[in-house]
């Protein structure tokens, strides 16, 4: 099992108020699945994705990633797991303006300690595949939104992660570029990568095999897409 949560809770405490962002989430996601998470703004979608991605901690409950209870891991151990297994795609692309396209895509490999030659080979492969070679020496600000998100997807996959977490990956794109990103994710899924995507768009959610609906921090329904039913 890739992901399993047990009674997962996330509570934010400010001076006077307690806000429950996630309330008793019990979920299982198998390796190779493509899951969409939907729900209104503030329902806890992004918080759940951040916890799955080990960039946030649950307040209570268990989170098993690759069958290990990681909720109580030290930050160093979590970072190790994250960097070798998880790729992220965000709505706002998250590219570094000071770095070229090539360097942005190469970045996750630096953290894995691969040799320069191996890094160059893998980065060029991904750039080639995403039709970004002509842009490799450009800076993010010289690209259109669609191209920037392609670079972000390239960076997410360059380390060949088991899991891709995508938070509104098409949120800043027009429909043509949005579809292009969805097709890229679909292709990655066909090649065996597990994908969990947060989206507002019913149409894009239907690219997945299973849709999880969140409301007020709770799973209210799950829907296995008919086209994938046995």
């Amino acid at each position, binding site marked *: 099992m890739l992901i399993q949560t047990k009674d997962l809770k996330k509570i934010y405490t400010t001076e006077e108020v307690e806000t429950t962002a996630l309330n008793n989430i019990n979920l299982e996601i198998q390796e190779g699945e493509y899951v969409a998470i939907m729900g209104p703004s503030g329902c806890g979608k*992004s918080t759940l994705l*951040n916890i799955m*991605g080990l*960039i*946030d901690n649950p307040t209570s409950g268990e989170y098993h990633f690759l069958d290990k209870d990681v909720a109580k891991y030290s*930050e160093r151990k979590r*970072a190790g797991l*994250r960097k070798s297994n*998880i790729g*992220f795609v*965000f709505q*706002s*692309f*998250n*590219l*570094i*303006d*000071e*770095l*070229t396209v090539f*360097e942005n895509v190469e*970045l996750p490999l*630096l*953290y894995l300690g691969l040799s320069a030659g191996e890094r160059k080979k893998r980065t060029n492969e991904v750039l080639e595949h995403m039709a970004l070679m002509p842009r490799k*020496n450009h*800076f*993010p*600000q*010289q690209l259109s939104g669609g191209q920037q998100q392609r670079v972000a997807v390239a960076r997410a996959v360059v380390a060949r992660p088991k899991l891709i977490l995508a938070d509104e990956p098409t949120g800043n794109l027009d429909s043509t570029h949005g579809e292009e990103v969805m097709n890229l994710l679909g292709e990655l899924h066909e090649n065996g990568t597990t994908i969990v995507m947060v989206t507002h768009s019913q149409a894009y959610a239907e690219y997945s095999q299973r849709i999880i609906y969140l409301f007020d921090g709770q799973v209210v329904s799950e829907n296995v897409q008919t086209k994938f039913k046995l």
Partner: protein
Amino acid sequence: MIELRGITKYYSTGYVKTFVLRNVNLTIGEGEFVTVMGPSGAGKSTLLHILGMLDTPSEGEYFFDGQPVHAFTERQLTELHKHHIGFVFQSYHLIDDLTVTENLETPLLYKKIKGSERKALVAESLDRFHIVAKKDLFPNQLSGGQQQRVAIARALITKPRLILADEPTGNLNSKEGKEVMEMFAELNAAGTTIIQVTHSEQNAAYGRRTIRLLDGWVQP
């Protein structure tokens, strides 16, 4: 440091040319703090992108340290941009799955700087921008003002000679905005050249010279 001669930028669609900048002549000396103002669509951001070598003019000449930037190849532009220029944008552009420390370190990873020196530079930067306590947090665990401080710290960690800032306080409240402007003033006092685009007269007051653009023309 910077000299623009007859810089013009237009976009052609069919038979129509849309002008964004018209015959801009401008000299900016090392150590200046210059503000560019003007209504939306006046060409401010385009001018900043050309100055930062992220965009090329349709016509005209651009000299940086006396070198003819307009005649440079793309590779030369990339090198010049990377070695001398730091860009600060309205939105933060931090990487959400890297900690504050890691975000700061990224531009250094490409500069052939030793691990120990990188650590020292990051520590110095955390200190200077008052984000030491946040060093192991992720961007989504910070407020907007803190995120912008990290973004600025990252833009400056390689010690660029020229800072180009496009509405750097646009997403911040007035207190946070003031902090950012005071940081710029401090950097400028230490010798860094700064060119900022802003809508705010208050922010413009930190600069020593204001250039006003209207419909692509520099106003006298």
